[in-house]
């Protein structure tokens, strides 16, 4: 039983007022008669000289109190919670994404969702069928239009919560493809509403009911973990973000190859991030960070990064003087930075990466390169000077930008890259893109402003950005770090084919074979968090590499349950209607009828007494 308008119960105060009307004496009009002799016998017990009188039993009073009480209860809109009646075809979409691991609902959001789905399946009657769809980063159908309770239960038993981000669009597409009449289809989404909302609004040709799961929003998560430094000053930069609405403290435990090397307590304000740099040995192969104690979502409390062995790469920095750039590049332990003036630069100089600061060479190098603050150049599409102002990420989902905090970073002057076809934008501003990345060979980046005209070099994001760019541009055997769960990873094995033995974080493994014509082998089964080891067998022998899967996506860590699926537009207009799975049967019409009966009785009693 629920009361949908409990505050209207205050009208119950009218009940003592009605009683008071019977206790208080009536204000009477005075009339003078020749004699009251014949009236005296008609008066019973109404001669009190006080402004109240004894409350006497009265059917009228009883009926009026009952009617008033019924009216007050009806005003509060009592409703009984009843299971919704299922239609002939019901599709239940169960969110099994990473946020559903949150334990703000005991034992977890996922378990609660499974229970609700099981309850719905239990309501299936004769002729009614149900389709189950699991919604994580790769939605899939668990059971197709079945009325078999045992089969549906087994499908739910097999479902496990994943680590990815919910793909609502894909899940609803599967729901739309379910068998049966779409007009009679009832789609129930059991979710916390945390889903990938990028792209246009989702239009669905059927009605959707959204059954929200989840109660809390407090969560701390590791937003980035990046090894840095050279062979003699190795360190790991760890960022922790508070996605909740309250201030929190946590201890960041750093482990090197499984051994605890640091435990630092940090305070993180709501909505803000906090970073720390922990020195690690030069021989480190694997570094991990863990927040202790765990909070509602343990998934993002641990992150791991693979530390590559020190390998000296050669970077050529062509500049008159740019200490910001020089030092940021030098942070990579495996990168030797040689600085030359523009006049001393020769195109035939060998380097793994060439960085041009403030100039564009007459001939672009064939190796990876980076252009920083170039002058106007028609061939590159570098235009006139603009004033970008505040920077922002142009590719929020790109691993290069994950956890990169550009808040408050401003640029005074930059070159207009709006017309440039140099590459895809990574960072932009109101005036247009300011950082372009070319994925085609040779890999290259174009930063459209002089670092001295910006406060970017002073922000914590700068060294991370330069390191990620250099990792992206430099020849790399391992995939870029970090990799989000359920991402597709391409491992270069070389033309001619080969096999890759993949060992997952839980120890399970499989062997993948690449097409002879393809240079890469694709790994898509990356739902587990942790380190994936790969043994690549090629013509020249076998090599071993590894990559880490970390759940660093802020969307996953923002666990606050959404009140609605606002980016879904269903047939007939409007968003999904809450709640699903149950309906409220309002009782006020019955109460109103009872009140009407009581008032009729009161009328009869009154007129019989007249």
């Amino acid at each position, binding site marked *: 039983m629920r009361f949908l308008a409990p505050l209207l119960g205050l009208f119950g105060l009218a009940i003592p007022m009605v009683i008071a009307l019977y206790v208080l004496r009536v204000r009477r009009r005075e009339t003078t008669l*020749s*004699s009251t002799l014949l009236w005296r016998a008609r*008066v019973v017990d109404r001669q009190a000289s006080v402004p109240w009188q004894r409350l006497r039993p009265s059917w009228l009073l009883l009926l009026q109190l009952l009617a008033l009480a019924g009216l007050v209860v009806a005003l509060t809109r009592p409703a009984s919670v009843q299971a919704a009646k299922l239609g002939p075809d019901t599709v239940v979409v169960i969110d099994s994404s990473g946020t559903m691991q949150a334990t703000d609902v005991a034992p977890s959001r996922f378990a609660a969702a499974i229970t609700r789905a099981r309850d719905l399946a239990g309501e299936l009657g004769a002729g009614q069928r149900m389709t189950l769809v699991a919604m994580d980063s790769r939605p899939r159908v668990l059971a197709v239009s079945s009325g078999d309770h045992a089969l549906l239960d087994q499908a739910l038993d097999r479902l496990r919560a994943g680590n990815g981000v919910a793909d609502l669009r894909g899940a609803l597409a599967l729901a739309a493809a379910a068998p049966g009449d779409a007009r009679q289809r009832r789609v129930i989404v059991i979710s916390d509403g945390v889903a990938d909302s990028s792209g246009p609004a989702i239009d669905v040709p059927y009605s959707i009911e959204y059954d929200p799961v989840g109660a809390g929003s407090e969560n701390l998560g590791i937003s980035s973990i990046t090894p840095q430094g050279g062979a003699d000053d190795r360190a790991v930069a760890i960022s922790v973000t508070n996605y909740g609405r309250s201030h929190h403290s946590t201890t960041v435990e750093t482990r090197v190859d499984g051994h605890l090397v640091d435990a630092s307590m940090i305070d993180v304000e709501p909505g803000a991030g906090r970073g720390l740099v922990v020195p690690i040995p030069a021989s480190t192969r694997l570094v991990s960070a863990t927040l202790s104690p765990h909070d509602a979502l343990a998934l993002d409390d641990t992150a791991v990064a693979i530390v590559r062995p020190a390998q000296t790469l050669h970077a050529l920095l062509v500049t008159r003087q740019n200490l910001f750039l020089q030092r940021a590049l030098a942070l990579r332990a495996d990168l030797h930075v040689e600085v030359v003036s523009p006049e001393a630069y020769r195109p035939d100089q060998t380097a793994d990466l060439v960085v041009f600061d403030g100039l564009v060479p007459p001939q672009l190098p064939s190796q990876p390169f980076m252009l920083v603050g170039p002058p106007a150049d028609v061939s590159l599409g570098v235009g006139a000077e603009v004033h970008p102002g505040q920077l922002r990420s142009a590719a929020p989902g790109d691993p290069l930008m994950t956890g990169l905090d550009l808040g408050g970073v401003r640029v005074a002057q930059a070159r207009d890259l709006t017309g440039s076809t140099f590459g895809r934008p990574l960072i932009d501003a109101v005036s247009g893109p300011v950082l372009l990345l070319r994925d085609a060979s040779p890999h290259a980046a174009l930063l459209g402003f002089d670092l001295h005209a910006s406060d970017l070099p002073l922000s914590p994001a700068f060294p991370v950005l330069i390191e990620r760019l250099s990792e992206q541009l430099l020849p790399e055997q391992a995939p870029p770090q970090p990799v989000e769960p359920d991402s597709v990873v391409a491992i270069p094995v070389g033309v001619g084919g080969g096999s890759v033995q993949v060992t997952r974080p839980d120890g399970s493994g499989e062997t993948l074979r690449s097409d002879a014509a393809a240079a890469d082998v694709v790994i898509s089964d990356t739902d587990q968090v942790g380190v994936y080891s790969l043994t690549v067998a090629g013509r020249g022998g076998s090599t071993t590499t590894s990559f880490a899967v970390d759940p660093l996506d802020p969307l996953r860590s923002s666990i606050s349950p959404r009140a609605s699926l606002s980016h879904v537009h269903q047939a007939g207009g409007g968003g999904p209607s809450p709640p699903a799975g149950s309906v409220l049967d309002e009782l006020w019409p019955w109460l109103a009828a009872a009140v009407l009966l009581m008032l009729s009785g009161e009328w009869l009693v009154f007129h019989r007494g007249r």
Partner: protein
Amino acid sequence: MTGAGAELGIDGGVIALLDRLALSSRRPVLGSPGVRRARRTGGAVEFADHRAYTPGDDIRRVDWNAYARLDRLILRLYAGEEDTTVTLWIDVSSSMGFGRPSKLHAAAALAGALGYVALAGYDRVAVATFSGDVAWPVPPLRGRARVEALWRALLALRASGSTDFAALARAAPRSRPGLCIVISDFLSEPGPARGLTALRQGGSDVTLIQLLAPDEISPALSGDLRLRDAESGATVEVTVTPALLAEYAAALSAHQAALRGVARRHRGDLLTLRSDTPLREALGACRSHTLLR
């Protein structure tokens, strides 16, 4: 027809009617010797006594010889003849001021008509008023010529005070035996029983005329009211509903039945009239009740 008579509603037509009427008693009464033959058995006309002349007496009965000797007007009375004293007891309490016309006005008109009949029949007529006390605004009159004085006295009556039938009892001994007509609304307690007993013991024949205003017969009241008694000032609170009005009507009937019982125990009768009843109809009712013949 005189001015006072007209104000009382006694016009020429009513007087013509009254001239054909006479008061009747239910039983023989003892009275002063007069022109009305007594109903008692008796002998021929015989001298019985003298008494002092009073205005209105038939001058033919003056004993001129005695006047010559005594230089006073003395009337000769004869045995076998009686003149009846008709005493009109009129309730002048405040409650009689209610009604439109007022009950007191209706009482005065009716008393004026009955008094005219009595005077025209050579009876004595006296008017006594009572509320808290008894007053005699009209001493015993005799003769048709005194009717104007009677009417003027009746017109001068004003309603005030509270009804007290005990006062009537106290004043009864001063009343001459004869016919006593008590005109009141009889809406007070204690009732008239004690006064009637005193009148009966004084040898009078008693007739009660109850005058009620239309609102007292069918009250035009509704809602929550505090009713104040015009005489006592006492209040009662009622919620007037149709059911209560029905109860009131039943109570009025019961009250009248009780009053009629009291009258009959005293060998009298009760005549109930509405205060707005035209005088001709009221006289007709009196004939129906054999008060007039």
